[in-house]
Every structure is written in C-alpha cells, then in structure tokens.
C-alpha cells in the first residue's frame, strides 16, 4: 500500500464558520506533503482532524489505513505530531522532556539517538525555557518522532524562525523523509513549499484550490514564462534601412505567443509568453543582425506565489 492518508469531502465547522469546506486529497507514503495557504485558510484544522484532535462534521479521513473517527487512539500510536506553538514543561530539561514524551509512546525510540539526530545533544541538560526558537522547534520535532511514527505532522514548523534556522529545519525534515516516514506539513511560505515539498495542496477559505507537485502546478496554472530583457538602445543607426522602425515594445507585442509586455520602469521589459523558445530565437536573431542590443536576458518560470495569485487574485501575506 503506498497511500498514507486519504481525505474525502472533509467538512469542519466552528459554530457558523466553515473552517474546512469539502476538502479531498491523498498523501503518498514516504513523501513530504505540504498544505499551503494564508493564515485562516483551514490548514491547521485539517491537520488536527487528521491527528484525531478534532471530530469532523462530515467526510472520511483515513490515516495509515485506519479510520480516524472510529479509532483515534490507534491512529495516535502510528503518527507523530508537532503542534503550532505548543509549549513545554518549562522547568524540565531537553533530555527529560523527550524522556517524558517517550513514556507516552507505545514503542519509544532511544532518547540519546533522537537528541543526536536533531542536534540537541549539547542542550540535553538545559531547561526548556532557556532554549532558542529554533532549538524549541527541533525539540518539538524530537517529541513528534519519539514514538517512531509512520506519519509525522508538522504544523508551521518554520514560522518565526530566522532564515538560517529555517534552512536547517528543512534538512531535518528531509532527513525524516529519508528514514522512510511520511511528512505532512503546513506552511504559509511559498518558497518553503517549493523547496521542500514533493507535493502541495493550496488552500484558501477552507477549500483546496489546487493539488500537485510544485512544478506541475506552475506548469498547469502558469503556462506562460516570463522573459526579462534589458535593452541598451533600440536600433543602432542605419541598421534598419531608411525608414524609421516602429518602437521595440510594439514589435515585441506583435510577436506570436507574446501575450503581454510589462514595463516596470527600471529599464527592464517583462514579456509573458507561452512560447519562450520562439521569442528567444527572435531576440537572438535581432541581436545577430545588429538591430537590437541588450545587457541582460533572463527567462523564469512562475513561482508558487504566482500560482496563488493566479488562483485567488490575492498575494499571500506573511
């Protein structure tokens, strides 16, 4: 069986607010699956239903082949959970804390090995309240891993961390996947999802808007490439014959495949095109003929940020 999680038509309401509105997806065994979306999109609620912490109002949720509604305790024995900014017993040390959570586990892993895995061995004797944000987050993940789980849920694991600590945590999460565990995480950082996740689901207002690998989503939803070109001058004298050539922008607009030409005002032109190859060919030809010179040329595919913008008409706010 290579399916770790099945979610079908999940609905969860809080009084009259619909937090999760008919969400369906599956998570494959051994992948890093990311739920992506702004705050309040319903990511955490979805996760908490999967973790057996909330009872859904409708829908089917199966984790590790077990129906979560019917057997939440059995599910809890197979998963590891890191909750969004959950605290610790501040006066216990790192070693004692992992030991305590090991005592809650059905088949605990050795504490020392876990501390090494998460680079916490130097802090083993430190009381938890003296840890930095990154160290607390690693401790939190250590507690999620102490029960040797098949599936690990990480709710906003990198929120509030500086870029360096965030990248260090990405390595930790990839190492968890390398151990053969499935990772489900939430994030509102698009670049994090793009760099870390095998597949992502984009959520907004309780609905799942898109699902797939980051590349798939970008290719499917953003078929156009962005070509950044910075011309030095338009047409060198005498090259175009006697008659005045039309302005470069108009010539670019007339090219097949080019849907839009933007002028951000910094000397760049941004061209959106579904056929970047022919555009590049044309640009190269013009330069070869001496009709056009440019100082830089860059081709980019969109980002997940653009996908979100495309889907919702809004930017993700951090």
């Amino acid at each position, binding site marked *: 069986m290579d399916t770790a999680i099945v979610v079908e038509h999940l609905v969860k309401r809080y009084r009259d607010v619909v937090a999760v509105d008919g969400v369906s997806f599956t998570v494959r065994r051994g992948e890093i699956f990311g739920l992506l979306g702004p705050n309040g999109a319903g990511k955490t609620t979805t996760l908490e239903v999967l973790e057996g*912490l909330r009872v859904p109002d409708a829908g089917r949720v199966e984790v590790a082949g077990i129906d979560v509604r019917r057997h939440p305790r059995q599910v*809890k*024995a197979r998963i590891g*959970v890191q909750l969004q900014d*959950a*605290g*610790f017993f501040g*006066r216990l040390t790192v070693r*004692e804390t992992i030991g305590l959570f090991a005592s809650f*586990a059905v088949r605990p892993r050795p504490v020392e090995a876990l501390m090494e895995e998460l680079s916490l061995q130097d802090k083993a004797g430190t009381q938890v309240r003296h840890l930095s944000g990154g160290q607390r987050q690693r401790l939190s993940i250590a507690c999620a891993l102490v029960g040797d789980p098949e599936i690990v849920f990480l709710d906003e694991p990198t929120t509030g961390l500086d870029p360096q600590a965030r990248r260090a945590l990405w390595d930790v999460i990839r190492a968890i996947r390398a151990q053969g565990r499935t990772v489900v995480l939430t994030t509102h950082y698009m670049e994090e999802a793009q760099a870390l996740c095998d597949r992502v689901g984009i959520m907004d207002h309780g609905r799942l808007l898109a699902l797939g690998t980051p590349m798939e989503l970008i290719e499917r939803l953003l078929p156009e490439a962005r070509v950044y070109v910075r011309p030095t001058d338009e047409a060198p004298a005498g090259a175009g014959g006697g008659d005045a050539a039309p302005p470069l922008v108009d010539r670019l607009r007339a090219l097949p495949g080019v849907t839009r030409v933007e002028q951000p005002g910094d000397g760049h032109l941004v061209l959106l095109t579904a056929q970047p190859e022919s555009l590049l060919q044309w640009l190269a030809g013009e330069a070869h003929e001496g009709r056009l010179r440019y100082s830089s040329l860059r081709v980019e595919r969109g980002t997940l940020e653009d996908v979100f913008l495309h889907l919702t008409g809004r930017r993700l706010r951090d």
Partner: protein
Amino acid sequence: MSFRIWWRDRGSVFWGVVFPLLLMGLIGSVFGRADSLQLTVTVVGPAPDGAPGPAAGVARALQEAMRAIPPVRLVDEPLDRALEQLRRGNRTLVIEVLPEAPPGQRARVVAYIDRSRLQTGEAALAVLRDVLARIERSMTGVPELLALETRAVSGEAFSMFDFLLPGVMAMSIMQTGLMDVTWTIAEYRDQRILKRVLATPFHPMAFLLGLLVRFTLVTLLQAVIILAVGVLVFKAKVVGSLATLVGLAALGAGVFLTMGFAISTLAPSAESASMIGSVINFPMMFLSGTFWPKEIIPEAMQPVVRALPLTPLVDSMRAVAVEGAHLGPYAGGLVYLTAWGLVALAVAAWRFRWE
C-alpha cells in the same frame, strides 16, 4: 519528574514551604509565649517606704504574694513611670495601693490595665483578685474553707507553635491547591501543553490523574516538611496521631486541589485563574482560624467563618495535633469539606477543556 518541576520552581517551593514556615515563625515569636504567660506587674505603695501602716502592709503583702506566683515578673518603680510603661505595653498590670483611708474604711487598691490587651489584662486581674482575697483572709484571720487544686490536663504546657503548626499546615495545603494547581493547569492549557499530550497515544485521563497525584504528593511533601520543621525547630508538640494528621492533610489536599482544578476550568486565562485563586485564598487564610483562634473574629463574620471549607480542616487538624482528639466530633465538618471537593470535581469535569 514532577518533584523536579516543583523543586526547580522556586516560587512554588517558597509559597508552599518557606512562606508558611516564615509566617509561623513570625506570628509565633511576636504573639507567642503563650506557654509562659508573662505578667509584668508593678505594685506601688502609698509612700516611699517608711510610714508603716495598713496600706503599706497591704502593698508589701501584695508584692510578696505576686513574687510567689511563677508567671509574674515584679518590677519596682514609681507610679508615673509604671503607667508610662503600661501604655507602651511593657506592663501587664499596675497596682496602686492608695494611702490610708479614714480608720474603719476599706483599704483601696487601684488596678490599671491596658485596654488594648484585654485578655492578658483580665488574666492579671484574676490573679490580683485571688491574691487580694488571700491577703484579706490572712488579715482577718478567716480560715480557708475551700481549697482549689488545679491539675493540668495535658501534662505538657501549651505553646503558641503547637497552636500554629496545624493551622499553617492546613494553609499550605489550601494554598497549593488554590494557587499552584490553578495556575499550573490553566498555564498548561494556555501553552497548549495539554493539547500536545492529547496528541500522543497516552491516555488523556491517565495524564490528568497523574497530575492530580503529582499535586497531592507535592502537597503532602510540603505538609510533612512544615510538620518536621515545626516540631524540630519551633519545638511544636503534636499530641495526636501523626497518621491521622497526614490522613487529614491528604483529604484537604484532595479537596483543595480539585477546587484549584475547577477554578482553572472556569477562568479564561492563566492570569485570571491565579487571580481568582488568590481572591479565594487570602480571606480563607485569615478567617479560618489558621493563625489565631477563630473565636476572636467578630460575631458578624462568624457565619462566613463557618462556611469556609478551610475551617473544618484547620479545626480537625488542630484538634488532632493539640488535643489528640478523635475525629468523631469533626465528622460533620469533614463531610462538609468533602462536599466542597465533590462540587469542585463536578465543575471541573463539566467545564474542563484541553485547549
């Protein structure tokens, strides 16, 4: 693990053990000395010596009789100075034997006492009356017809610390329940520690039960430390059975920590939880007879005193510690205390939230 959490939290060690002991030491040494109820007495005669007459004789006889009574410390000084000292609280009783009255009239003795310390003053007056009666008899030659013999019931003298120790133990138990437990549970909820535990395969009820056991043990440990320090350092005497005393402490711990638990479920945040805890805690601390006999609390307040759940705990613990009493007469109060615990348990079970 839980003892480490307790020990590392200097605050709870302070409030649970050091603070009650400090209070006991302070109150005991300031208001104490109940064991040697000291009466400082000045007897002022009619004239500076010489002039032998009936009045001077009475003064001398009074001085001698007073000197013979163990708790009385006799000070020889002029009247104005004695009254000044009385006003300052350094004398219990000042006796002035007035100069000769016309023959055939009674010799007049004036006793000055400090109205702000009526209790010791009254005690001193009682001594004085007794002494005067004896002097009168010896002067008039009427034989003593009745002999009063006093026998101490408990062989040992009663000290202020004997009285304070059970009260302070009960206070510490209540304090841990209403302050510590309340804050801790609410804090665990606010910090989502409870939720974190809920996400593990560990049985959530077992965790809550473990918390209760932890607090009960911590409370009992604190009570035992206070008991040990009270007996060893403050020389308090415990007459009754230690096992009964610890049993009562355990019952009190159960009730008050359930109350703390209930309060934490009613309060929206850890801060408000500990506020509510203190608001309930402090009046009880002073109105339940922990530091002084509850009888001295004004009559109007007595219904409140009787309604407080700490009162039966203090009463029964004190009865066991000081008099070695059986719990029989206190059963009603203990049932009342337990009822509080059950109500709190119901509230806690009804209102408890993991997050």
